[in-house]
């Protein structure tokens, strides 16, 4: 089939008139052939065929209730996939189970079947389903209700979230056998009123946690505490539920699930579901500026590849890593595809910031096939069922391999070929992946890391727990040791929020404050603390945004992009969490410039790295990190040139966390032949390389690891500069999450290996003077450094005796 044919057909037949949506059987194959013949493949650094996987079936479990069996029969299910049968069997024995099989392998049946079985055999049994988003609960509620009706179960399945009407809330409390909600609602709306939910808690047989992989970092640490509280409440009401987890692929599903619920969990990870072949491509846009290591725009490249796919009738999902990226791609795609007579409405954005109504409308249009290409941030990773997609294009590496495979997993059919494309950006980690693409299948996949004992998180939840039930002397809170629990409660007592009463067995701690602690604890940044974005023309709320993003996205004068249109922020009302915007039509967008400063609060560990002539000081401890947005750049659409700057005046954001640091003495800097500023700039380059290899080595999202170059001693560093003479330049790598989740200490332990890997990265990078993939491009803004940066970094490493191991 010729390429021309494909184009002609697309032009003759406008997509909005196609009756059978997205139904082009050979579309993906055709595009692949075309890319091979037209030179596109020259920039493909890796082309990998994932083989199809045949189905593995198991018989219906013997004990399955006849009504449930009939319901399955009605759905054409006569046998189960092996993993579904396995899950049923383990759950029936009361074992906690985590099912970690690929997207679209029928995971929901793995938990629905044991739950329905329980309800069929005991009408008073209850189950609690937790989904990370409201949209997912609604989706599941519909499916479950139909299933339960067919299984002749009269017990209700009710979604209880912020959108549930008052009447339905009462019904949910009194009657729901199966309650679907999200962790936030459980935390703030249900558990603090657990006595009103006595029916649910005293008969609680199963707790289903879907999309387990999304609960990592802060959110996961919160969830683990929510589960500790849940189990306390369940114990009070006399129940001891079995946990059923479902997860996308992560490196440690079993350990992670076990950390979340605090008990051993059985793992099921061999999927019995069939999958069609998948072609994976890693496309590294060609270098356009070899000196600076700048590559062709990955955004534009992703748009071009997507255009090829959509024109050939291949239903495509495009992922961007930022809201801005998504909006820019949406605008470009609509512009370009208009030339192919494809209506702009057939290409749509989908992202977390959309209000629920908008999201549901888009989901419906997707299912109906009215939308042929969706541009999304990670919202779709969450498994919303939008029907069969043939291709996924990731504009930029999502930061983790698990995240990438979850995105790739959104495309895929039972039999036919699907296409998964990663377009790497100039970001260091992207370049690392593009240059080591085999790691995508050979390296171990990332672990989901949480720290339920993170002190800030733990204390917040202990307050909530004390509000829910007084702490008795023999009380258990997850696996927190008794003495630590006692100290934490004494801490709360000293702060007057709990009141200790002495008894012969020990102290009882009662909540003693005129407040509702759950309201002050947000499980994720994106919930109660959201800023609303108000369009001044029409005075309507067009979106919400997580407050952490407001500093960089909603500062005054920022161009905010929403559904392909541009708005300028006229006023940011920080106190009331509102941003007022007005529709504009600029030829540029804005990106914020941030500055961060680290101050050591307490040093826990200290070591000298003595490998060569000059020793290095390494440390580990608690730091305060102050981040501030200092200004923004205006970037012109399409050409991406920098067309101006502006100042931003926003409060600083401060957090306490754990950091690893590496100090180069001032004497060492002075002893170098190069000027001080250039040596410091080289060290900053080294910190970038350490950040890249650190993130890759720890298998984490690079955003979880903060980096800055400053002074070991804050007082000596001029604020905002960090380059004045007389201070010891120090590289800081720190946990982005306040309180830390243990990344810094891992880096400290592997400090020498970290330096060696950084050296290896720099040595093997093909750029000349530093590129985003290693030490970063020269950032001196016009002051041309005289020395070759890369050579200087390597010379500095020589001086401290770091040689590459590889």
């Amino acid at each position, binding site marked *: 089939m010729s390429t021309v044919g494909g184009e002609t057909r697309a032009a003759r037949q406008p997509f909005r008139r196609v009756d059978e949506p997205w139904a082009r059987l050979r579309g993906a194959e055709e595009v692949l052939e075309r890319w091979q013949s037209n030179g596109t493949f020259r920039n493909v650094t890796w082309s990998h065929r994932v083989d199809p996987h045949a189905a593995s079936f198991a018989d219906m479990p013997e004990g399955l209730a006849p009504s449930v069996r009939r319901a399955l029969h009605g759905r054409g299910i006569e046998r189960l996939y092996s993993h579904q049968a396995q899950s049923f069997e383990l759950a029936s024995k009361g074992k906690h189970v985590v099912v970690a099989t690929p997207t679209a392998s029928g995971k929901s049946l793995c938990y629905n079947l044991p739950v329905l079985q329980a309800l069929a055999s005991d009408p008073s049994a209850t189950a609690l389903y937790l989904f990370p988003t409201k949209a997912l609960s609604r989706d599941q509620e519909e499916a479950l209700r139909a299933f339960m009706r067919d299984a002749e179960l009269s017990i209700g399945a009710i979604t209880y979230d912020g959108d549930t009407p008052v009447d339905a809330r009462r019904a949910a409390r009194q009657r729901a056998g199966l309650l679907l909600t999200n962790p936030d609602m459980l935390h703030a709306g249900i558990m*603090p*009123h*657990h*006595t*009103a939910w*006595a029916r649910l808690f005293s008969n609680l047989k199963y707790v289903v946690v879907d999309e387990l992989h999304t609960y990592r970092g802060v959110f996961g640490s919160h969830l683990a505490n929510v589960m500790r509280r849940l189990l306390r409440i369940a114990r009070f009401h006399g129940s001891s539920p079995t946990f059923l987890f479902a997860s996308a692929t992560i490196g440690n599903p079993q350990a992670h699930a076990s950390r979340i619920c605090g008990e051993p969990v059985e793992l099921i990870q061999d999927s019995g579901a069939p999958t069609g072949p998948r072609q994976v491509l890693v496309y590294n846009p060609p270098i356009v500026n070899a000196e600076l290591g700048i590559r062709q725009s990955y955004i534009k490249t992703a748009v071009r590849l997507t255009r090829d796919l959509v024109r050939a009738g291949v239903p495509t999902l495009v992922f961007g890593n930022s809201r801005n990226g998504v909006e820019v791609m949406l605008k470009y795609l609509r512009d370009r595809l208009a030339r192919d007579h494809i209506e702009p409405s057939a290409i749509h954005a989908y992202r977390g910031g959309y209000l629920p109504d908008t999201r549901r409308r888009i989901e419906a249009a997707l299912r109906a096939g009215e939308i042929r290409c969706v541009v999304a941030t990670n919202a779709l990773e969450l498994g919303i069922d939008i029907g069969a997609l043939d291709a996924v294009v990731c504009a930029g590496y999502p930061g983790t391999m698990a995240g990438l495979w979850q995105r790739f997993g959104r495309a895929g059919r039972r039999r036919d070929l699907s296409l998964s494309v990663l377009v790497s950006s100039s970001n260091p980690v992207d370049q690392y992946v593009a240059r080591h693409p085999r790691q995508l299948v050979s390296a171990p996949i990332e672990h989901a890391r949480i720290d339920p*004992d*993170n*002190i*800030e998180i*733990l*204390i917040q939840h202990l307050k909530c727990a*004390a*509000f*829910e*039930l*007084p702490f008795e002397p023999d009380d258990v809170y997850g696996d*927190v040791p008794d003495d*630590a629990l006692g*100290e*934490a409660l004494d*801490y709360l007592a*000293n*702060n*007057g929020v709990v*009141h200790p*009463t002495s008894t012969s067995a020990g102290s*009882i701690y*009662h*909540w*003693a*404050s*005129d*407040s*509702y*602690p759950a*309201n002050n604890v947000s499980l994720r940044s994106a919930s109660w603390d959201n800023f609303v974005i108000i369009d001044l023309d029409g005075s309507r709320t067009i979106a919400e945004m997580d407050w952490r993003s407001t500093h960089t996205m909603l500062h005054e004068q920022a161009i905010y992009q929403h559904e392909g249109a541009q708005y300028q922020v006229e006023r940011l009302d920080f106190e009331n969490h509102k941003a007022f915007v007005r529709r504009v039509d600029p030829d540029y967008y804005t990106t914020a410039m941030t500055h961060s400063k680290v101050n050591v*609060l*307490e040093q826990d560990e200290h070591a000298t790295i003595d490998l060569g002539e000059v020793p290095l000081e390494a440390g580990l401890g*608690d730091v305060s990190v102050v981040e501030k947005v200092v200004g923004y750049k205006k970037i012109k659409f399409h050409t991406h040139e920098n067309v101006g700057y502006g100042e931003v005046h926003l409060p600083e954001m401060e957090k*306490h966390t*754990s950091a690893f640091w590496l100090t180069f003495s001032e004497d060492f800097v002075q002893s170098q032949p190069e000027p001080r500023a250039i040596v410091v700039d080289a060290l900053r380059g080294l910190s970038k390389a350490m950040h890249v290899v650190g993130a890759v080595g720890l298998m984490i999202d690079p955003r979880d690891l903060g980096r800055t170059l400053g002074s070991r001693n804050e007082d000596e560093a001029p604020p905002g500069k960090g380059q004045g003479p007389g201070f010891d330049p120090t590289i800081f790598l720190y946990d982005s999450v306040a*309180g*830390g989740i243990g990344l810094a200490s891992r880096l400290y332990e592997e400090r020498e290996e970290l330096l060696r890997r950084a050296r290896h990265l720099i040595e093997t990078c093909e750029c000349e003077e530093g590129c985003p993939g290693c030490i970063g491009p020269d950032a001196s803004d016009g002051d041309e450094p005289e020395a070759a940066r890369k050579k200087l970094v390597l010379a500095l490493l020589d001086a401290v005796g770091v040689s590459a191991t590889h």
Partner: protein
Amino acid sequence: MSIKRGLARLAQTTPRKLDVASVRGALPGGLRETEHGALHLIDEYLEPRHHHGRTPIASALQVSTERLAQLALNPELESIDLRRALFFDTETTGLAGGTGTVPFLIGIAWFEDESMRIQQLFLPEMGKEAPMLHWLRERVQQSSCVVSFNGKAFDWPLLRTRFVLNRVPAPSLPPHLDLLHCARRVLRPRLQSVRLVELERKVLGMYREDDVSGALIPQLYFDYLDGGDISPMAKVIEHNANDLIALAALVAELVGHFDEVHGSDDPRDHLAYAKVAERTGDPARARSFAVAAANGGGEARCTVEACLLSARMARRGGEIDDEERALLGALEAADTDELRAGVRVALAKFYEHRRKDLARALEHATGTALAEGEAAAERRVNRLRRRLSS
């Protein structure tokens, strides 16, 4: 960061609470042994002639339970024995609700002959709720109804939570008279706020001296728990007793004034009572209160509304002349075009359907647009013209 290290860090940055100076006296009341443990009980009788403001509280016993049931929109209250009514009010550690809000003082009261008996159950330390709850449970089970102010939304759900948490079986609640809802129904049009303190001043003529502010009460209790001075707690106990007494006085006033028309009452009150009577199927009472409201010399809007209600009641009784008089009275009272338009709609309907006087109906129908909209008014006029010419 280990938990212990983290705690040390947090402790550095958060100020420790100051110790409260320990100057304690004795709280009123005393400990009473019960089969469920010691209970701190404040138990007292009021004089039979006790007045709250200008209201003798024993007059609460005299009110008609039919009126009471009507006012509460709850037929269950019709035949209750007021001598077994239990008044209750709680003081709590907060207003947030949920499992962490504790009622540390549960006030209950009932009549014994003409005297009010007040018992206040005080929580001397956290965790000793069981004796209080058992005591309350027994009292509730003996009662014909419970009377509260906002108890349906606040106090009772909170108490139910305490029963569950302390594993004491909750009593099944007899009919619940929540005076907040009654007060809203009757007094909202006249008083902007129907908070208890406002009602006390404006309905009962009672001004408390040296009362504690409700907002401070949780902290006063926490201070007490921490060993602080007891005198603020004694004031909280007095405050709670006064709230209980106010409940009885309010029953007397709210229901008493519904039993028969008090000429000196505000026409807005009369109108509100008329509406309650209409809603509960008591047209005769509705009409007499509506007439009182119409003749009360109130604002035009109130008079017009009263006349219209009066006309509706007359129609029910088939008294066509009275209906006409009431409607014309409404028209006379209406002092704005908008009010007149509303009345003219009623008059147009009245003459068209009741009097079959199409000409007069048309006369009024030409001025209804402001009330029913241009389109509906035009349809009405056209229909009447058509019928007149046929």
